[in-house]
């Protein structure tokens, strides 16, 4: 087995402390260069690992502690295409973020680079690991780096509060995960995912297994930002520096979903075989709730970063629906959507960085028309929004198409309509903000939008305009193009097929039997998918226009609809109280509901 896998993991983790130590003696800019080089090298390595993983999962045992007779004492990395793809996406986004932040954090020296590299190292370990406890430790490493990155502008009130809420709720998520790990270890005496799966296989799930499953799912949903565990997410994203938001929106929440999928398909898929329907509808139910809350709240924001954060929550809901189908097709579709979403959200968040730095605000209403001169950033903004809306053969199109095929297990028509509606609302908000800021369209005031405190960071560094605009434009171009790459869907299907084959995974890890999933052709494009994609894109443009010129509608109509809708929206807004105690109460409630549903259903 190639030594490349552990090197990919170790490189950023070694570079981080070296950079921290040498930072004092390095000349200015050398830290920027060193950070970018380390991230770029990791990206290259991760790409090689990904390409190789398509020839079959590879297993690396640390210290050569291989399993004997189905018992593993050692710790392993098990690299399959899906995990390798997440690692590569993280590495690429980290590189983009570091390029963008050239001279961004002059006052803090190397600290930013160190934290971002630690984030990357943890993320790679997390996506490669085949060991339950290592998954936990690597995820925590990533999260702690993320807490610190959120609070980077420590001199302001917002970042302190956002980071505090983020840290408290996510740490509690980790506690739930660790409780689940402890219970599983107590039952099976193993931490290796394959070995736990083997030990549970063939026995009907009892209370302990169900409770462990519920705790793990709840913990990973906290990390993923699914409703009602999502409150930390909008706070953290709204206050983190723009390059950090790129990482958060692109991969951070996806780690939670990835962890959930990983433990389900390696450990719980066989014991919960009879309860697939229940698990499916539980996950899809949380996905639906998440998508609705995220989409509505994103449309109500005037703080552009917070709007993008809520739009990410809406997409988390869509990913969760794809994952919740519990089919390889749904998982592949979610993966494809994650790629397109990560790239376009990255471009959009870098766009907010341009607003902050050049226009000194991220308030949609205050910025009306002030972006007129920034045509590269404007074009980038609309390109990324279109990639999110996913008309045929653009952006997330392949993911949407795949989800359309996979959702037959849920009921195809309502799923397609629901996902189109979520896309319309969340993308409509982004288009509205872009049209207001970069084109100066729409009204100057809108009482429907959440009031914003005017905490605009002063003293942002003035950096060359091209340096700001180019990384975003590159990300947006990649996001648009990703929809037209025809080989992506078959590869994703292959990866998902391999990921979801529980028995083959265990055989590869414990007996060293290499296996390869059969190659699958992507299903033919159906007219229905094309129609829904066009409806979603057209609807998003229409809704953006509604958001801009709502007040020109006849007064009678506005009053009637307003009386019905506004109280509900206000109630939804009130729930997002900004109080960490409330968030934790929701977290406890959500965990109880989830555990109750699963326990009641499985044990019946």
């Amino acid at each position, binding site marked *: 087995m190639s030594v490349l896998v552990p090197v990919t993991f170790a490189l950023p983790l070694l570079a981080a402390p070296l950079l921290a130590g040498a930072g004092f003696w390095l000349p200015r800019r050398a830290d920027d260069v060193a950070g970018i080089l380390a991230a770029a090298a990791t990206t290259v390595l991760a790409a090689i690992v990904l390409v190789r993983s398509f020839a079959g999962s590879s297993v690396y045992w640390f210290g050569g502690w291989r399993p004997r007779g189905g018992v593993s004492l050692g710790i392993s990395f098990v690299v399959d295409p899906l995990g390798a793809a997440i690692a590569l996406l993280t590495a690429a986004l980290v590189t983009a973020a570091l390029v963008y932040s050239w001279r961004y954090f002059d006052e803090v020296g190397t600290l930013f680079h160190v934290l971002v590299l630690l984030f990357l190292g943890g993320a790679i370990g997390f996506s490669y690991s085949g060991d339950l*406890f290592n998954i936990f430790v690597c995820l925590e490493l990533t999260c702690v780096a993320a807490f610190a990155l959120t609070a980077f502008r420590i001199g302001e009130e917002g970042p*302190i*509060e956002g980071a*505090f809420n983020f840290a*408290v709720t996510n*740490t509690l998520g980790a506690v739930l995960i660790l409780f689940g790990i402890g219970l599983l*270890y107590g039952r099976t005496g193993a931490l290796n995912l394959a070995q736990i799966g083997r030990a549970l296989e063939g026995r009907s799930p009892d209370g302990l297994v169900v409770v462990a499953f519920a705790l793990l799912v709840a913990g990973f949903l906290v990390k993923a930002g699914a409703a009602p565990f999502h409150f930390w997410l909008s706070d953290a994203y709204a206050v983190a520096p723009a390059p950090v938001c790129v990482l958060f929106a692109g991969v951070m929440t996806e780690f939670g979903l990835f962890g959930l999928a990983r433990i389900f398909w390696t450990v719980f898929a066989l014991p919960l075989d009879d309860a697939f329907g229940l698990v499916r509808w539980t996950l899809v139910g949380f996905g639906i709730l998440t998508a609705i809350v995220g989409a509505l709240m994103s449309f109500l924001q005037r703080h552009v970063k917070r709007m993008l954060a809520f739009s990410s929550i809406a997409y988390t809901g869509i990913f969760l629906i794809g994952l919740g189908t519990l089919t390889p097709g749904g998982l592949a579709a979610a993966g494809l959507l994650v790629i397109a979403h990560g790239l376009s959200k990255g471009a959009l968040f870098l766009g907010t960085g341009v607003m902050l730095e050049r226009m000194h605000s991220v308030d949609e209403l205050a910025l009306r028309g002030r972006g007129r001169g920034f045509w590269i950033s404007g074009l980038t903004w609309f390109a990324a929004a279109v990639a999110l809306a996913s008309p045929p053969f653009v952006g997330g199109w392949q993911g949407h198409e795949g989800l359309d095929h996979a959702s037959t297990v849920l009921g195809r028509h309502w799923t397609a309509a629901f996902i189109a509606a979520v896309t319309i609302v969340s993308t409509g908000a982004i288009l509205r903000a872009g049209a207001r800021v970069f084109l100066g369209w729409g009204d100057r005031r809108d009482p429907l939008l959440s009031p914003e405190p005017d905490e605009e960071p002063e003293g942002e560094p003035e950096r060359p305009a091209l340096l700001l605009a180019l990384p975003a434009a590159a990300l947006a171009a990649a996001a648009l193009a990703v929809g037209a790459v025809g080989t992506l869907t078959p590869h994703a299907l292959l990866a998902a097929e391999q990921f979801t084959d529980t028995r083959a995974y265990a055989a590869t890890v414990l007996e060293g039997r290499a296996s390869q999933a059969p190659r699958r052709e992507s299903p033919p494009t159906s007219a229905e998918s094309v129609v829904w994609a066009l409806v979603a894109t057209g609807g998003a443009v229409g809704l953006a226009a509604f958001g801009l010129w709502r007040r020109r509608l006849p007064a009678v109509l506005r009053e009637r609809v307003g009386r019905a809708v506004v109280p509900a929206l206000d109630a939804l807004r009130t729930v997002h109280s900004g109080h960490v*105690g*409330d968030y934790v109460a929701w977290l406890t409630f959500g965990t109880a509901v989830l555990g109750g549903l699963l326990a009641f259903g499985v044990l019946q």
Partner: protein
Amino acid sequence: MSYAPYAVAVWLLLAGLFGIVTSKNLIHLALCVTVAQSGTYVLLLAIGYREHGTAPIFSDVPRSRRAVDPVVQALTLTDIVVGVTVAALLLALAVKAHERTGTLDPAELRELRG
């Protein structure tokens, strides 16, 4: 073995959660997070406990002696490290919040709403 350690673990988790939800002070809140975390330590150690087992160090006792499970102890130690990191970060944030706003009450730190 009795069920008492498991009950204590769950109790610590719930007590920590209750403390966080009702907390009126960020420092108190950060410590409640560590209380919830210590529930996991108790759970892990209880899982690895063996009646009449010694510490899993065999340099001065015969190898045949029954010992408690070293794996969960390693997990607990790792988790303590994670917990301390988070606690340090939370307390640092609490200090900064106090510096900046003059209050430690999470109800008064409501910049991020709606």
